[in-house]
Each structure stands twice: as C-alpha cells, then as structure tokens.
C-alpha cells in the first residue's frame, strides 16, 4: 500500500504559477470593477435625489396604497372595463397583423440571400433599426397627433414599432432558410418570384407565424400601457383610476390585465406548438 504523496503548499505554488501568482492587474480587475460599479451607483443615488427619509416615507405610503387596494372591486364599471379589455386585445391583434403584412415584403429586401447588393440592403436595415429605436409609447404620441385620441392611434403605434422588429426578425429567418430548395426551383426554370413563393416561403412561414403569435402575446402587454398616453384600451382606464386614487378599481384592473395576459400566453403557446409541431411532422 502506497502512502499518498506528501505535498506542501510551497511545492504546489511552484508548480501552478498561473493560479497562485497571477499578476496584480488580473487580481485587481474584479474588485476594481465592483468598486467602480458601486461608485457610479452611489453617484446615481445622490444625483437622482434618493434619500432614506424620502424612501421610507414613500414605502409607508405604498403600504397604505396596497392596503387600500384590498379587496379588488370594479364598482359599477365592470362593463366599461370589459369593453376596454376587448379594445386592448383588438389593438394587439390588429396592430401585430398589420405590422406583419407590411414587414414581409420589406424583410425580403433586407435579406442577404435575396438582395445581395449592400447598397440597397444597408439603408433598409438602418431604417428598420431606427424604427425599433423609438419606443411604442412615443409612436403612440405621434399617432395621437395625427389621427386623434383613441384606440386607432394605438393600433397604428403598435403596427409601426413592430414593423421595425418584424422586418429584422423575418429577414433573419429568410437568411437562415435552406438554399437548396430555391436552387431546385431555379433549376426547373422558375422565375425569381417562383423561387420566393415555392422555395423560400414554405420554409419561413411557420417560423414567421410563430413569431407573429409571440408578438401578439407580448403586444397584449404593450397595448395595456399605450392607453396611459391616451391611445385607448384598458391602460386609459388604469391611468385614470390611478390619478383619481380609486385603488380598489386599480387593483381590479391590474388583476384583469394579469389574467388576460396569462390567457393569451396559454392560447398562443398552444397555437405556436401546433404550428411548429406541424412543421416538424412535415
């Protein structure tokens, strides 16, 4: 029986210099980063008027608000809220569909395997990027200026801001598509449009449908908030009730939103699974 080899610390140190004798710069990098992060944090807290007294006063206020929210109660305005919820869902569905319809042709132009020329593709990509750089709420404000207050402005706001996102996502899906089927169509004498219709679209449509469903889901959330600036839907009711401090109605509205979002999540999850499952089976 052999005794385990005796090793002392000095020997191990000598054998693994990389681990034990790291240069000071490497050893200090992490603490320095943490200190810098905290320095900015402290500066931020001071600059943004954080003070413990204000924080705790606000917290106790928040405690009162939470107490006043219980129990959630719509009062007599349940029908109004249900209608607003329907409006929100309509905004999400219509806005997303509109965005998808307009984004599909543009995404073809932004895909490398369809438009090889950089000169056309680059400006389209930057254009889509700048649309995405502007928040949905800002688009809502702009559209309110154009078509007036109401849910229609919300539909257009969601349509525009999703147009940017869809253009990018769709073009990535198209770039990821298999080129062999396109070549097959070309070999049998198909035109460029035939290549897209029979070679590309059957491959990318399930992906696109999945993304559209996912966006309908996430737009249900966006549609709840664009009401806050006056673009219709349940957000309008929510903002109003918060401003007049009707906390029981507020908590009821928040619950309604949570339930609606969960329901849409569930439905679109099922649908997405059905679509992607069908693609896998085909």
């Amino acid at each position: 029986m052999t005794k385990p080899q005796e090793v002392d610390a000095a020997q191990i140190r000598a054998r693994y210099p990389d681990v034990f004798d790291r240069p000071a710069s490497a050893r200090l990098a992490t603490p320095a980063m943490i200190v810098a992060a905290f320095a900015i944090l402290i500066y931020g807290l001071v600059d943004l008027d954080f003070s413990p007294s204000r924080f705790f006063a606000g917290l106790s206020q928040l405690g009162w608000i939470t107490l006043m929210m219980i129990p959630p109660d719509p009062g007599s305005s349940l029908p109004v809220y249900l209608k607003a919820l329907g409006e929100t869902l309509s905004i999400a569905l219509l806005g997303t569909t509109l965005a998808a319809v307009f984004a599909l042709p543009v995404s073809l132009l932004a895909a490398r395997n369809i438009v090889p020329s950089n000169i056309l593709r680059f400006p389209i990509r930057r254009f889509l990027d700048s649309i995405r750089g502007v928040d949905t709420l800002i688009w809502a404000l702009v559209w309110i200026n154009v078509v007036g207050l109401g849910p229609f402005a919300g539909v257009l706001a969601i349509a525009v801001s999703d147009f940017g996102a869809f253009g990018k996502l769709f073009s990535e899906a198209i770039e990821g598509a298999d080129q062999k089927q396109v070549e097959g169509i070309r070999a049998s004498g198909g035109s460029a449009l035939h290549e897209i219709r029979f070679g590309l679209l059957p491959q990318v449509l399930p992906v696109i449908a999945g993304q559209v469903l996912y966006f309908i889901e996430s737009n249900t959330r966006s549609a709840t908030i664009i009401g806050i600036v006056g673009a219709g839907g349940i957000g309008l009711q929510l903002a109003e009730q918060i401003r007049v401090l009707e906390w029981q109605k507020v908590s009821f509205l928040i619950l309604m939103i949570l339930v609606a979002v969960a329901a849409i999540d569930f439905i679109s999850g099922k649908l997405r699974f059905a679509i992607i499952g069908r693609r896998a089976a085909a």
Partner: protein
Amino acid sequence: MTTAVSILPEQQLAVLNAAYRQAVSRRRLRLLLGAAIFAAALVLAAIGAEVNLRTLFTYFGNFISYFDRILTLDNGQRVWTDVGEWFWGWRKWLKMLGETLLISYVGTLIGATFAFCLNFFAAENTSPAPWLRFTVRRLLEFARTVPGIVFALVFVIAFGLGPMAGVLAIAIHSTGALGKLFSEIVENADMKPVEGIRSTGASWLSCMRFAIVPQVTAGYASYALLRFEINVREASVMGFVGAGGIGQELVVAIRKFYYSDVSAILLTIIVTVFIIDITTGWLRGRLFGKEARA
C-alpha cells in the same frame, strides 16, 4: 443506360390519387377554416378598436407631413442647415439624457442584485423548499407581468414626482425579468460541484457561493447587460408619467408641437440607444469570450 419508371396499374393508381386528393383537400379546408377564423377575429378587432379607414386615408398625409414638420425649423429652413438652432437646448437635453442613463443603470443594478438574491430560491435544483420556490416564482412573475410604467404611475403617487419613482419601477420590473433568466441559468448549471462541496459538510449558503456562483457569473453579467439595454429604452419613456428622464422633455415637445425639438430629442434618443446597443454587444461578446477561454 435507360432508367425505367414503373407505373402502377390503373386501378391502384386511381385509389392512390383519390387518397392524395382527399388529403390535400382536407389540409386546404383546414387552412381555409383557420384563415376564415382569423379574418373574423380581425374584423371583430377592427370594430373593437374603432378602426376608421376613412380617417386613416384623410390623415395619412398628416403622418408623412408630420415628419416634414419635425424636420423644419421655425424659420422654414431644413433642420440640418442650422444644427446650432436645431439643438438649441442640447445642454438641458444632455443633462436629461444623463439622468435617463443613470435611472436605467441604478434600476438595473438594484434589480439585478435582488434577482441575484432571489433566483437561487426560484431554481428547481437549488431551492431549499418547494413552498419557498412557489412563492418566489409567483412574486417574480408578478413583477415581470405588470408593465414597468404601471409601477411608475403608482410610485409617482407614493414617492412623489421625479426620477426616484422611475428607478424603483425599473428595478422591480428588472427583478422579475432577470430573476427568471438567472434561475434558468442556475437550473442548467452542473450539480457535481455542489455535491462535492456538500460532502465536505458545507451549508447551503457555502454551496451556492462556491459551487454555483462561479459557474453562472458570466451568464448573469450577460443578461444584466442585455437588461440594461432594454431599460435605457424603458427609462426614455418614464418621463411620460413624470418619473424622470428625457421622456419629460419629449412629451412636452410633442404635446406643445415644438416640431424641431421633437426630431432633435428623438435623434438624441435613437443615437444613444444605438451606442448602448453596440457597447453592450461588444461587452457581452468579451464576457462570453472570456468564459469560453477559461
């Protein structure tokens, strides 16, 4: 060499053809049915959302001319002919922009810290008790599902107008979003180091500290950076409800029809978002590069 394609006898072929046609027509019918349901839903939605195509046609010109107007100075010139006049308020806007970035930074850091503390309880493989996991998960879900701006609306009333409400709203929303992502990283972590450390008699806390945390920090940092990117966008609209940042200036400019200001502030926001996107993308690339090298 000739290749022969064997053709089935007529009757067999007829049966196969019929079956094929039936299968195709059944698929077509299902597709048509789906399309019909979707179209019906759209029509219903259009009625619900008070879509009025005539309004759109009448006012669509306004949408185009809106961009014409925001790109025109008060004296009728294009904005880029006199950049000094266009960005007349750049000192104030840069200050507000700095505030926006600080709001998102502080909010992200606070949110990430809370998410870091909570995610070990939410992950399947490290949670000490099922009831604790359930509670933490529901809590994170709530923080994630309620939109940040709704929190901001409530906080503005509780904490008063100003950036503090914005920071807290972003912090809570980030806690929810990051808590979920972090716990997913932990669920994918290798459990062998945990077993090794537990076998030495270490407590739960030491197991997390020495077995899980070293595995997950790079992933955490990457997600936190991504969240920072999202929060910059979110912080730019917090001002709409009075929760600080450049949104306040923007909403005033839009509502009061200070056209050239709108384009100047929008451009500032877009450029900032671009820069942040590129920087965090580069940082994340470096982080993941480091992880791959180790």
